[in-house]
């Protein structure tokens, strides 16, 4: 076909022709604009086909195994049909066969006599010889004696596979994986070198190794304890593995609840949890969403998507205004999705206008004072000892105290102050007017209007906070006192100070406490609460919430790809994070 129509070219691409082939055949006869469109579509088709090939390869083994099951099922159905057919025709045939055997047996004890009824010309049977007459009884007796001998040697019949086991049974498995009913409502497969103790039909303790369990729904549930935590289920398929330094739980179907005394997690289908002897918990996705191989093979079960760093939270901040009601997604392990208070929405879907960044970003307007993404669930952030907060930011001014991520009370806050990177932690005594300590380093290179990658790391043992700009260490400071555990929710884009010692004395002005314990006026921008004290030029807004005064500070610009790691990253790793090299 000779065509300069782009539709024809696209159709030919869909028929499986390559662009190079078409060019060779047709020459470059398309308009530049059409040629560009055809090239782009060819790339889409190629990427989709590559995706499908990758998926096909991943599905291959599982799918082939399913075909095997189906073929087996068909074979069984066919053999059942065959047996039914045989049963229908069997009585007459079987009767005849047994009758013949009986008469043969009888006949063998009696010598045949010439039968006068034989037709003329027909060969008469030869009279049996004596050893022939004895052959059948001897053979039958030998068979009976052999059968009795075998039974005596083997002992009683093998155990019924449906039997269950009494409490206080200890299952020890040393060799291959063994599948057995450990309770009326639960089937277990014990891995190699596994010790499982049974206390009752619903309580077990895994002392060593790995066990997969399939628990019927609607039963009394089942609890597996271990030195590192307990797993509680009501009807599901899951695996528990005990290692030297922790436990791994993964769920194939349904859901399970894991608890280690202080913390509790519900795992759903496809999720996998690791807990160690420090109480540290990681939750990830299993590499393969397999529900049935527990009972077939455990090879695929061993796959675990390793994360190079312990990323506890990642907010890509790529939401668009129309889907913001569904929340701001956290792609980390803890699902700390954010909510946006109605009427206080920052600008979602803002263009990054940067080739280094993907998707869109979120833009906070300094004038608004109350725009925030609220993280009501803070499971991943509260127990952190060492941590790193990293984000891409583009400031639009250099005002005081814009925050990237902030705990509502106590805890820590990261962001900026004028042209400095700022890390704040709650103080035991309100030495500073906000009841928090500030630690900062100069960051003049974080100009307004330019994207920069910033990171804040905290080492608990050293009480040290370090600041990074574009992966380069900008400075470090030692904290005068350790960080206090954050309380309440976290905020993205807003610094908030709940419960700080701000009070009113004259009904017109609001006062904070400074480093010397002296009160000072705070400018209040919310007229419902108080009026401004212009001599104090700090853009703090006082919110009245449940009778308490709450100052806030707003981030001044765009934030993208905010991440929190449960460890102190070095500058090399932070550079990789900035370049999206460490995406889990």
């Amino acid at each position, binding site marked *: 076909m000779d065509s300069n129509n782009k539709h024809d070219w696209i159709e030919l691409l869909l*028929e499986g022709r390559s662009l190079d082939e078409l060019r060779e055949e047709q020459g470059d006869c398309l308009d530049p604009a059409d040629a560009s469109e055809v090239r*782009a579509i060819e790339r*889409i088709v190629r990427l989709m086909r590559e995706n499908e090939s990758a998926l096909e390869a991943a599905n*291959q083994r599982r799918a082939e195994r399913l075909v095997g099951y*189906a073929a087996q099922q068909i074979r069984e159905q066919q053999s059942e049909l065959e047996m039914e057919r045989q049963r229908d025709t069997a009585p007459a045939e079987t009767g005849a066969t047994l009758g013949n055997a009986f008469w043969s047996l009888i006949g063998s004890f009696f010598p045949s006599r010439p039968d006068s009824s034989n037709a003329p010309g027909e060969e008469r049977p030869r009279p049996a010889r004596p050893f022939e007459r004895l052959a059948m009884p001897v053979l039958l007796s030998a068979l009976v004696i052999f059968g009795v001998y075998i039974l005596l040697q083997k002992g009683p019949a093998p155990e019924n596979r449906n039997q269950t086991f009494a409490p206080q049974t200890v299952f020890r498995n040393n060799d291959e994986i063994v599948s057995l009913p450990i309770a009326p409502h639960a089937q277990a497969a014990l891995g190699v070198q596994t010790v499982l103790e049974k206390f009752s039909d619903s309580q077990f303790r895994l002392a060593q190794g790995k066990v997969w369990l399939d628990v019927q729904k609607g039963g009394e549930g089942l609890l597996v304890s271990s030195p590192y935590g307990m797993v509680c289920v009501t009807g599901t398929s899951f695996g528990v593995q005990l290692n030297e330094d922790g436990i791994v739980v993964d769920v194939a179907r349904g859901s399970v609840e894991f608890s280690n005394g202080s913390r509790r997690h519900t795992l759903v289908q496809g999720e996998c949890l690791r807990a160690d002897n420090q109480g540290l918990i990681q939750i990830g996705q299993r590499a393969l969403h397999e529900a049935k191989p527990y009972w077939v093979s455990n090879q695929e079960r061993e796959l675990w998507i390793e994360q190079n760093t312990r990323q506890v939270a990642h907010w890509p901040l790529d939401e668009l205004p129309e889907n913001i009601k569904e929340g701001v997604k956290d792609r980390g392990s803890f699902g700390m999705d954010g909510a946006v208070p109605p009427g206080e929405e920052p600008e979602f879907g803002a263009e990054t206008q940067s080739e280094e960044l993907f998707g869109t970003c979120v833009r906070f307007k300094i004038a608004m004072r109350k725009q925030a993404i609220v993280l009501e669930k803070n499971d991943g952030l509260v127990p952190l000892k060492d941590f790193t907060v990293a984000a891409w930011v583009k400031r639009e001014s250099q005002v005081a105290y814009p925050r990237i991520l902030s705990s509502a009370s106590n805890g820590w806050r990261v962001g900026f102050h004028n042209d400095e990177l700022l890390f704040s932690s709650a103080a035991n005594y309100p030495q500073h007017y906000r009841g928090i300590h500030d630690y900062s380093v100069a960051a003049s290179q974080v100009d307004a209007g330019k994207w920069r990658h910033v990171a804040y790391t905290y080492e608990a043992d050293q009480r040290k906070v370090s600041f990074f700009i574009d992966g380069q260490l900008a400075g470090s400071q030692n904290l005068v006192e350790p960080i206090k555990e954050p309380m309440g929710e976290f905020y993205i884009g807003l610094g908030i100070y709940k419960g700080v010692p701000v009070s009113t004395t004259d009904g017109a002005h609001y006062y904070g406490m400074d480093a010397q314990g002296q009160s000072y006026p705070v400018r209040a921008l919310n007229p419902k609460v108080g009026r401004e004290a212009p001599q104090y030029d700090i853009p703090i807004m006082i919110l009245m919430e449940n009778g308490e005064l709450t100052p806030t500070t707003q981030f001044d610009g765009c934030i993208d790809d905010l991440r929190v790691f449960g460890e102190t990253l070095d500058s090399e790793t932070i550079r990789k994070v900035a370049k999206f090299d460490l995406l889990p």
Partner: protein
Amino acid sequence: MIDLERVAQFQLGELDAFEALMRGESARMLGFIRRYVRSAELADDIFQEVCIRVWKNRAQLKNRSRFRSWMYQIARNAIFDQLKSEDWRLEIEFYGDEVTALTSVRDSIKEPRQQAALREWNRIVSAEIRKLDPKSQEIVALHFAAGLNLREAADALNMKHSTLRSRLCRILRQLRRSLEQKGIQSGILKP
């Protein structure tokens, strides 16, 4: 290309031929079913149901060269039979987590920025496909996920070949526009 001799053996009731034919198509078929149902377990069950139906209905295959489209017709029926009792509407999940996981092992896309770009690309393509009308979603699923050529996909959907072809062209042009609007630089994905 389908082995017509094997299809003939399958129609004569040879289970080994059936098994070989199904194994050849199994991974694509399973991937296709998983696009319609979120639960991997349910997809497995439907897949086995399809295998059984293919075997039982082998005498109804009129044209052996259309074995694949016939098989995918059976698969679609099995999926709809399974799901019609539930409050369900067709929404094909094109590139979910599994593809995202696979992107890290793709040979042609090794550079981390490219991988991240591919993830973004997958996300947008997936979202755009979900916006299509049900028929169009199925066209995409049959052509790309099931790997049927245009004629086979048209057979499976009881459509005219030319209609399906022009519709798929439209879908691709729309996809291209959406990717461009979202600022996805597909150039980065060049191998």
